[in-house]
Structure formats: structure tokens, C-alpha cells
């Protein structure tokens, strides 16, 4: 009987090891797919709650801050120029850029038709990073019914899994901003970046009709 048990354990060892490795990598109940789904669900519930859009940025901010690594996203969007910024400038740029991202998201939410999202399986790209593909359909803003390919890039930070980039139809959110900020930083450093962001935020947000 003991021999049978020993053989069973030996045979099961590889499976158990893989299982343990997966548990260690993702942490119990802390896998990126679950985190992403629950975060997106929470954000969409707030965005499509039927309340007025003027207060949406303030209402959706906590949920976005919970799933987005805004510090990391801002640092990436600034590229190598980030190192030239003083700590005070870095803090200010992070604050302004986060504000812009939240405001931009909020202005795009219109109507009552909540988009449907079909998630694919996570694709591991490093021990602490993965990509989760998805298809978003019936998006109220779109004038067509074609689903949009959205890939979430996620990173495991001490606080848990966070989104650090989003690719929409192959266009990287971070790379797109990096291309824009690169020229600004070369022209006028952190001061010009801050001035430009402040001017952008001072202008009324363009909302979708």
C-alpha cells in the first residue's frame, strides 16, 4: 500500500511541480486574467451606470488607479528623457499625464450600450509580464459593428498585477505617447512637457457625440 502511494507520488510529481510553479508565479487567487476581468468589469460598471458624465473622471479614477501602473506608464511614455527630469518634475508629469489618461477615457464613454469583451488566454512574455488579448464589440462609439482587437500588457509588481500598456489594433498606447513626448523633451525638456500637458488639460475635453 505504501509502495503504491510512493509510486503515485512519483508519477504525479511533475504535474504537482508544474502546478506549484504556476501557483508561485501568479500567487494564489492573483492571476493576471482574473485581475484584468474584475478591474475592467468594475470600470465598465462605473462608466455605464447611467449617471452623468461630468463626474465620471472622479468616479472612475480609483478603479483605474487600482489596475493601471500609472507611474510606470508615465515613465515609459517619456522614454529616456525621463532620467533628465528632477524628482519634482517627475511627480508633476506623472500627475498630469495620469489626469490626461483618465480624462481621455472618460470622454470616450457615451451611451448606455456597454461593450462586450471576449478575453483570450494570457501569453507569458517574461516571468513577470504577460499579454492578454481581447476582442471588444458593440462599442457605443463605433459606427460599425466590427470588433476591435485590444491587447493588455500586464506586469507583476509588489502590489499585484497591473496594466502597463494597451495595444488597440496593434497601436501601442505607450509607444504612441513616447513618440509624441520624445520631440517635446528634445525641444524643451520637462518644462515644455509640463506646460504642454497643463495646456491640454486646461482646454475643454472633446466629448463624443
Amino acid at each position: 500500500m505504501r509502495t503504491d502511494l510512493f509510486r503515485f507520488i512519483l508519477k504525479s510529481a511533475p504535474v504537482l511541480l508544474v502546478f506549484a510553479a504556476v501557483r508561485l508565479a501568479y500567487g494564489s487567487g492573483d492571476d493576471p486574467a482574473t485581475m484584468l476581468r474584475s478591474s475592467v468589469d468594475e470600470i465598465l460598471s462605473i462608466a455605464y451606470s447611467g449617471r452623468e458624465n461630468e463626474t465620471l473622471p472622479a468616479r472612475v479614477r480609483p478603479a483605474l488607479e487600482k489596475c493601471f501602473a500609472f507611474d510606470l506608464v508615465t515613465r515609459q511614455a517619456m522614454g529616456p528623457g525621463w532620467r533628465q527630469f528632477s524628482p519634482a518634475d517627475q511627480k508633476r508629469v506623472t500627475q498630469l499625464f495620469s489626469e490626461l489618461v483618465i480624462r481621455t477615457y472618460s470622454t470616450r464613454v457615451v451611451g448606455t450600450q456597454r461593450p462586450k469583451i471576449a478575453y483570450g488566454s494570457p501569453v507569458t512574455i517574461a516571468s513577470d509580464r504577460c499579454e492578454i488579448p481581447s476582442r471588444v464589440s458593440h462599442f457605443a462609439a463605433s459606427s460599425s459593428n466590427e470588433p476591435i482587437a485590444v491587447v493588455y500588457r500586464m506586469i507583476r509588481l509588489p502590489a499585484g498585477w497591473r496594466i502597463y500598456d494597451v495595444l488597440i489594433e496593434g497601436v501601442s498606447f505607450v509607444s504612441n505617447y513616447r513618440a509624441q513626448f520624445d520631440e517635446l523633451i528634445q525641444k524643451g525638456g520637462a518644462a515644455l512637457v509640463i506646460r504642454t500637458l497643463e495646456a491640454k488639460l486646461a482646454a475643454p475635453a472633446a466629448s463624443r457625440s
Partner: protein
Amino acid sequence: MKHFIFGILALLFGLSGCAVSGKRSATAPAPVASASEATDFTNVPAQKTNDPLQRFNRTIFAFNDSLYTYALGPFAHGYVLIVPRPVRTGISNFFDNLGFPVRFINCVLQGKFTRSAQETGKFVLNSTAGVGGLIRVSDHVPSLADVPAEDFGQTLGVWGIPPGPYIVIPVLGPSDCRDLVGFVGDYALYPLDWYPLGIIHHSVISDAVLIALSATRYVGGLPKAIDTYDQMKSAAVDPYIAIRDGYLSYRAAQIKK
């Protein structure tokens, strides 16, 4: 002369759908290669874009922006208000279905034979059960629901031809040299363009019908194009670069599909 006018009309509006709809980029998303970079991406420099005509391009961009904001945008908005969504969807589906030869031949030119068979299946199904392409029945068939659309610009990319300098075209918006050449190939393959090219005889279809069809096709594509343009512009700190990067990235991703 008539052929020339049709050609210009098609050029003006035919590309605008893809041009301002947020297509493409020469700057592919910067890959994050190793775990050591996980918390410090700032050592990855931005990729340089092939844009030697930037000053000229920015002038054309400013002109196009005014055109989209003050003319085409309000026009597209009015179209959405007046024409009910099911009718708009039907129009869009009809002209999309008509583009079957473009997609099919480019699938074959790229050696994507399974995809060319899927395109044929979509065309047959939508043309019959979908009442001449007005209803996209194929969306309800899993194997036909999500077939990436191929065009000649992508075919040239698959063949290894580089995009060349980035160009902003008056009215049409962003493009590159490869896509401009690609547009000529797609133009020749789209059935509505066979009339001005002399492939379809004048007795088959009247000028008035062709003008009406062409106008409907281009107007139908406007709302989505303008909406995408507005979205990108409203989120950008430098709309010119945001749209240039978005266009080139989108095209690079389409070629990889």
C-alpha cells in the same frame, strides 16, 4: 475627362476611409524584451520614423484638420443623425462585400490560400443569404467571422518592400509611399472602379447610378473615419505625431496578421 473625374473622386474619398480611420505605423510598438527591463523601460529609445517631409506634411495636416473639423465632420455627424443605424450598417456591409476581389486577390498574392477560401465563403454567403451583401451573415459563422482584410499595400509589405517616407495627402490624410502604390492596385480591383477604367461598358451602368453608388460608398465610410480621427486628436499632445505613429503602427500590425 469623365474617367479622370471618377478617378479623382475615388482618390479623394476612397482612401480617406482608411487614411483617417487610424490605420498604421513605421514605429512598431517598442518590445519589452527581458525581465530585467521590467521596471525600467526608459532605456529603450523611441524608434526614428522615416519622415523627411515633416514640415510640408505638417502644413497639409493642418489643412486636413480644418477640413475634417469644419466640413467633413459636421457632414458625417448629420449623416449619422439622419440615416438610421441599420441602414448605415447595410450600406457599409454592401460596399464591403463588393470589395471581395481586392481581398481575395491580395490573399492569393500573399500565399494565404485558406484566407482566400474564407473570403470566397464570406462573399457567397453574404451575397445570397445576406441579400446582396446588405446583411453580414458571415459574422454568425465562427470560421468566417473574423477574417483580416488584405489589400495591396499589405501585399507589398509581405513581399518585403519597405514603407518609404511618411506622407500626408491633402484630404486623404496619412499614408506612405508603399500604400500609395498599393492604393492604385486596390483601385483597379474594386468593381465600382471598373467602369471609369473601361472594364465595364457604359451600357451596363449609367453615369448617374455610378455617381450615386460612389457617393453613397464614400459618405458611408466617413463617420467611422472622422470618429477615429477625433478620438486620436482629442487624446494627443501632438496630434500630428499621434496620428503618424498610429497609422504606421496599425499598418505594420496589419501586415503581420
